């Protein structure tokens, strides 16, 4: 129906629009998953989507502060950044990148199978995604452990132990603590997002098992997948900027 059809109507006292009855008669309508204040599934789906995208925009701005801090210090102390990034484990970082990309694939496929109503595959793929997320955190844990052992810690706590440093790397300037502050803040905030992601993935997994989703209603899977892709998106930038420069 076009917009004109609705707007170009009578001016005064037009009769009630057909299909918009009094609420007392139609307090609830449609399937159970259609919330009371929406008229159609499409409206509910589109609203959820736009809400999620606005939320993701907010997430991007949230991370942007860290990226600006990175940019400012990178531009002030390029040599220090290059020296410090040699202390990060490129192989572990790359592995984590592949793990996250793979989890992005599985969650995208989970949405796809949910769209066609294949509940079993959706469940499996969500579980795989959760597995990848946990694997990411485990690898991250070992990376953090190495940094703690080497004394490569944020700001005030930065006390490098020479025996733990990567051999043959350039010497670290005095202010390398700033790099590790940024490193820990960026990966830490990202890690918290991974944790939250695991939480919401478990939530949709349970709901999927309960059989709440169908071809007609898969919005929560889609929304959670969008969130998970964002976590991936941020890591796509974190990895090269921290490990590969």
């Amino acid at each position, binding site marked *: 129906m076009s*917009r004109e059809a609705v707007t170009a109507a009578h001016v005064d006292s037009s009769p009630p629009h057909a299909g918009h009855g009094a609420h007392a008669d139609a307090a609830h309508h449609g399937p159970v998953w259609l919330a009371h204040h929406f*008229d*159609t599934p499409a409206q509910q789906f589109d609203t959820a989507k736009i809400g999620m995208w606005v939320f993701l925009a907010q997430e991007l701005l949230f991370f942007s502060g860290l990226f600006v801090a990175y940019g400012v210090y990178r531009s002030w102390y390029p040599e220090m950044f290059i020296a410090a990034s040699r202390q990060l484990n490129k192989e572990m970082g790359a592995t984590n990148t*592949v793990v996250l990309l793979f989890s*992005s694939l599985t969650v995208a496929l989970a949405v796809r199978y949910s769209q066609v109503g294949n509940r079993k595959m959706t469940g499996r793929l969500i579980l795989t995604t959760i597995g990848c997320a946990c694997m990411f955190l485990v690898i991250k844990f070992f990376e953090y452990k190495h940094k703690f052992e080497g004394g490569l810690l944020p700001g005030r706590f930065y006390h490098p132990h020479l025996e733990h440093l990567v051999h043959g790397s350039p010497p670290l300037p005095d202010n390398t603590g700033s790099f590790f502050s940024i490193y820990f803040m960026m990966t830490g905030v990202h890690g918290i997002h991974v944790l939250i992601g695991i939480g919401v993935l478990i939530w949709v997994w349970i709901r999927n098992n309960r059989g709440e989703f169908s071809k007609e209603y898969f919005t929560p899977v889609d929304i959670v997948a969008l969130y998970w892709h964002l976590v991936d998106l941020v890591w*796509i930038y974190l990895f*090269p900027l921290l490990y590969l420069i």
Partner: protein
Amino acid sequence: MSTAQHGHGLSHDDGAVHAHVSSVPFYIAVFLGLLFLTGMTVGQSYVDLGKANIVLVVVIATMKASLVATFFMHLRWDDKFNVLIFIGSLLFIGVFFAYTLKDTDRRGERDPDQNVHVWEKTGEAAPGGMPKKEHAAPASESGGSALPGAAGMTLPQH
């Protein structure tokens, strides 16, 4: 903008959800593309390209991010307004980035007295501070010996 058409259920004829469904091989192809780009970015880190390094990694990362956003996140088939939200937020990040760096990168260029990082209590320079550059470049233009960047090591001579 396509959003103006939406009223209560007026956006679709039957009010049902019509989302685009991509095929499984397609998703796997996108994933392989992402893997390829990851390999590329790791590979280039072994080659020293000097200042081009950072540009290249950001370009590759942006290509990867676009793949994820366009296909995994369905922006290709989504409401154009959602695309606008996404691109718009990146523009605001750009403003944040560019304007802040416009200050931090050019600070003290015109006033050598600015920008001296000193701990006033002891007069010692803060740990860190900008390493001295061999080519104290803009000194002749700005009429001072201040270094660009906030954390100049130039201490005032008391």
